[in-house]
């Protein structure tokens, strides 16, 4: 059977077909992505109309019809300006100080600027992966910067240092133990067990007091001297140096000495030994300052809480595991606003009557615990992603639990979950707005307060204020989310095809 006789094989060449419709280039792109089917064409037109309806008035409001100069509401009224008025930017200019600093005294605002500058200088190199010295940078940002920022923003000086602090804390502990023992024993009922517990508490209190007695003596000596702060620091430095030399050798000693030198320098620069800067009470703080203080403190303080809870949840000691699970699920199950109310109205009842806590600090405690519970779940995800072999290898090398966690497991786990952590930081940053409900004036709170100023009451003031603060919030959150994407891509380089 020859090929020519078969009906299935054609004898002549097929006709040349026209070239297919172009799918590359600008026209091809339009054809494939916007106008490929009748339904899609309709969709494109609807979307274009929608986009125009949103974007055109927005641009018109923000730029074209906006009023840029003026002293009061008069400039932003349509019959004065002579055209329909959009955004009233003079309102923002007039209130800018309030939006950024709140009611922080004008003469002291340079302190806030210094803190902003210091924070930016320390944070930016920390975020750029290529720059060296990450350990030192992180130590400065997470340990030194908060302390310096506190004394810059709040003001005030130092009376004592670690020796007098620890002496006071131990004295309080001993006192509380003894008092509890006395009260338990004083009740006089409850039989043998209660009496034994009371006696044990009393003994414990006495033992703590006796063990700490050298410290009490040292505190008295330091108090009597002319320079209590410097003597206290010297004593602390000597003690820590001895421990460092004993545990870590010369290297650790050098690090400790350098840290104390830095500390002394900071004290001299800020004048903490001479009473420091004038105190600005937190009630005068406000605006972006409070937003940043709350969010940065929340982020920094929630990390150790989160790590501890994540380890606790995976611990094989039942009590610690159960407590961690209960703690995490509790905080994750309630809205943040109830936590803030708890911190504002309930926490003072739990503290001794003579012990008052600053309103801002109370809120910070609540936010740190709340964010810590969320971080714990993120970090737990990272811990679960670490293969068992890592821990087993470390155990085979003879590392202890804590050394394994510190040197082997945690660094890998945290690297895995940086994007997740950044996402929870974004959520925390957005949640800082809730402090306005417990009468702390953050950026949004200041905005709301500014609306009630009759000098600037115009029909467009509200939209202008929301546009301005919205831009600030958006820049921060969007920046963080882009950074998280950047890190994620960097971490996944090896997985890319």
């Amino acid at each position, binding site marked *: 059977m020859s090929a020519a006789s078969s009906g299935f094989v054609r004898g002549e060449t097929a006709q040349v077909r026209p070239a297919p419709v172009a799918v590359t280039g600008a026209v091809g*792109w339009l054809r*494939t*992505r*916007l106008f*490929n089917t009748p339904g*899609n064409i309709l*969709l*494109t037109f609807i*979307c*274009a109309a*929608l*986009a125009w309806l949103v974007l055109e008035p927005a641009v018109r409001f923000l730029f074209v019809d906006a009023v840029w100069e003026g002293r009061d509401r008069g400039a932003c009224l349509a019959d004065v300006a002579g055209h329909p008025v959009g955004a009233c930017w003079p309102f923002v200019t007039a209130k800018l100080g309030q939006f950024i600093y709140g009611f922080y005294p004008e003469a002291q605002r340079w302190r806030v600027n210094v803190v902003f500058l210091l924070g930016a200088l320390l944070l930016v190199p920390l975020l750029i992966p290529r720059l060296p010295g990450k350990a030192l940078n992180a130590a400065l940002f997470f340990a030194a910067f908060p302390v310096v920022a506190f004394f810059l923003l709040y003001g005030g000086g130092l009376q004592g240092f670690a020796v007098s602090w620890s002496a006071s804390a131990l004295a309080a502990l001993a006192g*509380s*133990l003894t008092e*509890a023992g006395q009260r338990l024993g004083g009740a006089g009922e409850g039989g043998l067990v209660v009496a034994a517990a009371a006696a044990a508490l009393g003994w414990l209190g006495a033992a703590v007091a006796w063990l700490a007695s050298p410290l009490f003596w040292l505190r008295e000596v330091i108090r009597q001297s002319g320079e209590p702060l410097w003597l206290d620091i010297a004593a602390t430095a000597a003690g820590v140096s001895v421990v460092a030399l004993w545990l870590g050798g010369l290297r650790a000693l050098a690090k400790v000495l350098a840290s104390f030198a830095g500390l002394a320098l900071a004290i001299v620069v800020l004048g903490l030994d001479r009473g420091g800067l004038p105190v600005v009470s937190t009630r005068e703080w406000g605006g972006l300052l409070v937003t940043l203080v709350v969010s940065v403190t929340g982020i920094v303080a929630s990390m150790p809480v989160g790590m501890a809870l994540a380890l606790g949840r995976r611990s*094989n*000691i*039942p*009590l*610690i595991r159960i*407590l961690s699970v209960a703690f995490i*699920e*509790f905080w*994750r*199950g*309630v*809205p943040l*606003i*109830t936590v803030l*109310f*708890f911190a504002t*109205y*309930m926490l*003072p*009842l*739990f*503290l*001794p*009557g003579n012990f008052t806590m600053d309103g801002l600090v109370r809120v910070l405690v609540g936010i740190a615990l709340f964010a810590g519970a969320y971080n714990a779940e993120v970090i737990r995800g990272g811990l679960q992603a670490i293969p068992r072999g890592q821990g087993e290898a470390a155990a085979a090398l003879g590392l202890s639990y804590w050394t394994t966690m510190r040197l082997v497991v945690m660094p890998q786990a945290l690297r895995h979950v940086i994007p997740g952590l950044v996402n929870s930081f*974004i959520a925390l940053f*957005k*949640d*800082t*707005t*809730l402090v*306005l*409900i417990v009468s702390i004036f953050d950026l*949004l709170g200041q905005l*709301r307060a500014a*609306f009630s100023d009759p000098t600037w009451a115009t*029909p467009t003031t*509200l939209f202008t204020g*929301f546009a301005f*603060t*919205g831009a600030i*919030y*958006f820049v921060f*959150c*969007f920046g963080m*989310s882009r950074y998280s994407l950047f890190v994620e891509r960097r971490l996944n380089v090896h997985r890319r095809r």
Partner: protein
Amino acid sequence: MTGEARKAPFRPLARFKRIGGARASWSGLAAQAVLLAVLAWLAYEMVANVRANLAAQGIASGFGFLSHSAGFAVSQALIPYEQTDSYLRVFAVGLVNTLVVSAIGIVLATILGFAVGLGRLSPNWLLARLAGGYVELIRNLPLLYQILFWYLAVLGALPGPRQSLSPLPGVFLSNRGIVVPEPVPQASFAIVVAALALGIVVALGLGLYARRALFRHGRVVRVWPYALATVIGLPLAMALLFGPPLTFDVPELRGFNFAGGVRLLPEFAALTIALSTYTAAFIAENVRSGVLAVSRGQWEAGESLGLSRGQLLRLIVVPQALRVTLPPLANQYLNLTKNSSLAVAIGYPDLFSVFAGTALSQTGQAIEIIAITMAVYLAISLVTTTIMNVFNWRVARRGQA
């Protein structure tokens, strides 16, 4: 030969250790003991401080205040409520309001979220960009900011009742809220509803029949025209026979306010809009990640079968995507419910606002009220999480088979 199973040697200390659960070491047991001691000490300190503080402030603790008369008005009560009712009643009113705003928010957020999430994956470039822009804008602004924006700037900028906008006949938008006609059930209401229910049952039966015909015999039976006719026709016929089931009480402007109709509070409207648009942006991201998790081959297989994009999404992609999307979706619903407590910022009378806000400031019973409020939210969230875990476990198991 098989020897008898040997008994474990009797080692009481080891058994004690096992009960204590310290697989690691004795130091674990010691840690637990120390932890217990510290907790006991903290609890003791707290109780002692609370007693001293309450005594100093002259506040009697306990839940007795719940039966006292509240004496304040609540602007939206869906269950009967008078000013003289007890605090327990206030609690119930607030709880109902929270549940209502959450339920409506969840429905709206789900619809909008799926639309935006699927839109973001559309081959239409403009639609994908618009959906992406929506998600980025909404997700990067604080929720409280958005609630205040809708409440103060948008709804607050509406004209007064006399100049109110009327986008549809009988619907009025003003700064007093949204007024819509109120449906009033008539005598034939029950009959028509029964007819509707019957129609739905018949339609479901037809659908089942068509499905069976398709799966057993490979026949495609077109039943939807009959189903539609039953669902619409049956109640319509009843309404024609027995008279209209509902009449509408159309609102009218009288003096400075509206008479008749149902008024939705502006607070309610602002909260619902803000919660549902905000949560929708997060749901859209969950939907998107779920759809992207469906492997490319599934899409290609559906395309090669000649399914349209709508069929492809409905029959192949979304059911598989749901398995990935459902757990975070439940989380978003939970977040929405918890976030509804932000109502306190604009004065919508939800559980938190009337109970932990007004009732707390009137009675001063901080511990009891905040504990009850936290317990309610905690219970809602734990119940939802448990249901989701069970559901998730079943879906995961079915997925593996």
